[in-house]
C-alpha cells in the first residue's frame, strides 16, 4: 500500500514536471497580453508576429531535437535556413515554379545537414566543429549571393503573390502539426528514434548494443535538415525575401528554446519533441515581451542579456533538478 502511494506520488510529481514548461508558456502568454494591453498596442498584431516567428523557430527546433537527443548540437541551422531560402529564391526567379522552389529548398537543407554529419563521420571530427565551419561558409555564401543579386535593395525575393495564399494561420498550423506528428512518430514509435535516444544516453553502450553510431548521426541530421527546409519555406511565406540577416539567430535560439521546453541539453532518453514547440513559442513570447518592456534603442542588447540570464536560470534550476531528481535535466 505504502509502495503504491509512493509510486503514485512520484508519477504525479513527474506529471507536474512535464507540465511545467507548458505552464511557463501559458504564463508568458498571459504576461504578453497584459503588457500589450497596458501599453495600448494591438494584441492581434502582436499575436500574428509571435505566431509567424514562433512557427519557424518551432519547426526548425523540432527537427533539431533529433540532433540534440544525441547530446550534440548544430549551430549552423540558422545559416542553413538562410542558405536554403536564398537558393530557393534563385530557383524560383529562374524557373517561376513554386514546386521546384520547395523541392530545392528541401534538397539544399537536407544536403547541408548531410554534409555536416558526413564530414564529421569521415574525418572523425566532433559534429559541433563541422557545424561551426558550415555556419561560417553558408552565411558567407548566402550573403555573397544576396548582395550580388540584390544590389542596392540589400535583399532578394520572390513576388509576394506567389506565396500569399499560404500566408495564413491554418496553413502554417497544419505544416507545424504534420511535421510535429511525423517527428513524434519517428522519435517514439520507430527503431530510429528509440535508438537515437539510447545513443544520446550512452554512446559506448549503444555501440556495443549494435547501434551504428555514424549511421544514426546521419539520420538525425537528415531529420534536422527537413526541419530547416520547412523553416526556410515558411520564412519565405511570411516575408517573401531574404537578407543576409534572415534567420541569423535561429541556431542559438533553438538551443535556448529546447532548454525552455524542458529538454536536457545532454540529450538521451528524456528528449522530447514537444520541448521544441513549447520552448520555441516560449522563447519568442519572452523576446517580444522584453522588446515591448525595454522599448529603446538599446533595447535589443538589453533584451538579449535578459534572455541569457533567463537561460542560465533555467539551466541552473534544471541542473539542481539532476541532483535532487525533481525535474528533468
Amino acid at each position: 500500500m505504502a509502495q503504491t502511494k509512493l509510486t503514485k506520488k512520484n508519477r504525479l510529481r513527474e506529471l507536474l514536471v512535464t507540465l511545467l514548461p507548458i505552464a511557463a508558456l501559458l504564463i508568458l502568454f498571459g504576461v504578453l497580453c497584459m503588457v500589450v494591453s497596458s501599453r495600448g498596442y494591438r494584441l492581434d498584431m502582436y499575436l500574428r508576429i509571435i505566431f509567424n516567428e514562433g512557427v519557424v523557430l518551432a519547426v526548425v527546433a523540432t527537427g533539431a531535437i533529433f540532433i540534440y537527443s544525441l547530446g550534440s548540437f548544430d549551430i549552423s541551422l540558422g545559416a542553413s535556413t538562410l542558405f536554403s531560402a536564398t537558393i530557393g529564391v534563385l530557383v524560383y526567379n529562374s524557373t517561376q515554379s513554386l514546386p521546384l522552389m520547395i523541392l530545392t529548398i528541401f534538397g539544399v537543407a537536407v544536403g547541408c545537414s548531410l554534409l555536416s554529419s558526413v564530414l564529421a563521420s569521415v574525418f572523425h571530427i566532433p559534429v559541433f566543429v563541422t557545424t561551426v565551419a558550415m555556419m561560417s561558409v553558408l552565411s558567407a555564401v548566402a550573403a555573397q549571393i544576396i548582395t550580388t543579386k540584390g544590389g542596392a535593395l540589400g535583399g532578394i525575393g520572390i513576388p509576394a503573390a506567389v506565396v500569399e495564399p499560404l500566408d495564413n494561420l491554418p496553413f502554417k498550423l497544419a505544416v507545424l502539426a504534420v511535421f510535429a506528428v511525423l517527428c513524434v512518430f519517428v522519435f517514439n514509435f520507430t527503431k530510429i528514434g528509440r535508438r537515437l535516444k539510447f545513443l544520446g544516453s550512452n554512446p559506448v553502450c549503444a555501440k556495443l548494443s549494435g547501434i551504428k553510431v555514424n549511421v544514426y548521426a546521419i539520420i538525425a541530421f537528415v531529420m534536422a535538415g527537413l526541419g530547416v527546409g520547412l523553416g526556410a519555406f515558411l520564412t519565405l511565406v511570411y516575408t517573401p525575401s531574404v537578407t543576409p540577416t534572415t534567420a541569423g539567430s535561429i541556431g542559438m535560439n533553438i538551443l535556448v528554446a529546447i532548454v525552455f521546453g524542458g529538454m536536457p541539453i545532454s540529450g538521451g532518453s528524456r528528449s522530447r519533441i514537444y520541448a521544441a514547440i513549447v520552448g520555441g513559442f516560449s522563447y519568442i513570447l519572452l523576446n517580444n515581451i522584453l522588446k515591448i518592456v525595454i522599448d529603446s534603442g538599446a533595447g535589443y542588447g538589453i533584451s538579449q542579456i535578459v534572455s541569457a540570464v533567463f537561460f542560465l536560470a533555467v539551466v541552473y534550476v534544471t541542473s539542481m533538478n539532476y541532483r535532487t531528481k525533481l525535474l528533468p535535466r
Partner: protein
Amino acid sequence: MEPILEMKHIRKTFSSTVALGDVSLEVWPGEVRGLIGENGSGKSTISSIAAGMQKADSGEMVFQGKPWNPKSMIDALQHGVGMIVQESGTISGVTVAENIFLAELGQFKKLGIIDRRAMNKKADEALRAIGVNDVHGSTPLAALDFQTRKLVEIAKVVMKQPRILVVDETTTALSQNGRDILYDIIKRFRKEGKAVLFISHDLEEIMEVCDTLTVLRDGARIRDFRKEEFDPDAIRTSMIGRELQGDYYRGDFTPSRLDEVALRAEHLRSGDALKDVSIDFHRGEIVGIGGLSHCGMHTLGKILFGAEHPEAGSVTTADGTKITNETAAMKHGIGYVAKDRDVESLALNTSIRDNIAIAGMERYAIGNFLVTGLKERPYVDAQIKSLSVKCSDRDQLVSQLSGGNKQRVVFGKWIGRGSEILILDCPTRGVDIGVKKAMYELMDQLKREGKAIIMISEELPELMGMADRLIIMKDGVIMKEFARSRELSDAEIIKYMI
C-alpha cells in the same frame, strides 16, 4: 572508547524502493568492519550516505563526537571520510594528476596559472605512497585500464588521510597485485587507529580482511559477527535468510558439447594482448577463459564480438560469416555482457525497459521498423520476470538498481533477443551469492538449450565450477587447455597463469 562514526536510525528510499529501513551502525577506532549482504541489501547505500555521496531521508550521524552531515563526497573526504566507489570514480578526459587533485587545483596556482609540473610531482608521490610505481601524474587517464584507474582513485582518497576509509566492492576491479596494495592500506589504517568499512561479495576475502562483520538484508541490519564467530554457512544464511539449496555450481563433472562449432577464432593477433590465438567454440558448451587481468582475455572477448578489430586473424560463425563489427555479431546471434557494466552494458539514466528493449527490437518491431508498447511491454516484462529483476516497474531508471539487479537487466537484454552465442566477461562481478547462483543456473540451462557460452573470468572457482573446457591465457597466449574434471585443482591451473 567512543566510536569514530555513529549512524542512527538511517532511512533512505528511491522512488518506491526502500533501500534502508531503520539502520544504525557504529564504526570504532582500529576496526575493519565488513558490510555484507545480497545486492539491494543497502550496503552501498549506507556507506555512501556516510561518505557524503547522498543524503539520508531521516536519521542522524555523529563523526568524532560531532554531528556529521557532509555536503558532498569532497566535503566528506576533506573532513575525514573517504570512499572508493564500486564503479568508475574517475574522469577520463583529464590526466591522472588532475583526477587526484580535482577539487584542489587552486593549491598549484602561481600567478593564476596552474603549475602542472608541481601537480604531477605531487600526484606521483601520492601514487608511490600506496605502492603504484608505473603510473605518472601526467598520463591521460583514458590511457589507463580499469584496474589502474581504480588504483588512481585509491591514491586520491588515501592521500587525504581520512579517519574512515570506505571500500565499496573495489577488489573485483583489481588484480592480485592491486588487491595486495589495498590490503596493505587497510592494515595501515587498522594500525593507526583509523577505521575501514569494507564491502565485498567475496566471503573468503571479507573474512580474511575484516575484524567484524555486519550483515544487511532488504535494508535492515540482520546480524553482527565478531572475527571469532566468522562461519561461512552462518554468514550466508544471515545474508539470504534461508539456506542455499543444491549445488552452487554445476553438479556434473563430465565435459559435454555438441559437435557443431558455433564460433571460430583463428590466429588472432592484437598488439601485446593477443598473440596468435585460435579457439573453436561449440554449441552446448561453456568455455571458460581465465588468467590474470592483463592476459588478453578481455581483448579476446571484445574481438569475438566485433567490438575491436584484430591486427590479424579472423572470427567466423558456423556459416562462415566473418564477424567484423557488433552489428554483424548480433545479426548472427552473438550477445556480449561487458566487464565494465555501468559504461559498456547499460545506459544508467535510462529505464530498465529501454535497456532491455534496445538490443531486441527486431524480435518485436513491426516490419522491423515500428515499435509499439503493445509488443514491447510484454517482451520487457518477460525478461524482468524470468530473471527476477527487483524493481518498482519497467520504467524505473537502471541507475537506481543494485549491482546484481543491473546485471540481471544486462542478461535480460541479451537473452531476450535469443542470443545463441553468449560472451560473458566477468558475468558475476559485483553480484552477491544469491544472484551468482541464479546466473550459474541460467548458464547451465542455456548450455542445455544448445547455446555456446564463452565465460571470461578472473575468478578461478567459477571457471572450474562451470566450464566444460577451461582455457588459461598468459601474456596474450593460450598456455593450457583443461577439460572439466573433478580432479582439477587451482594449484595446477595457477601454474599456467603466473
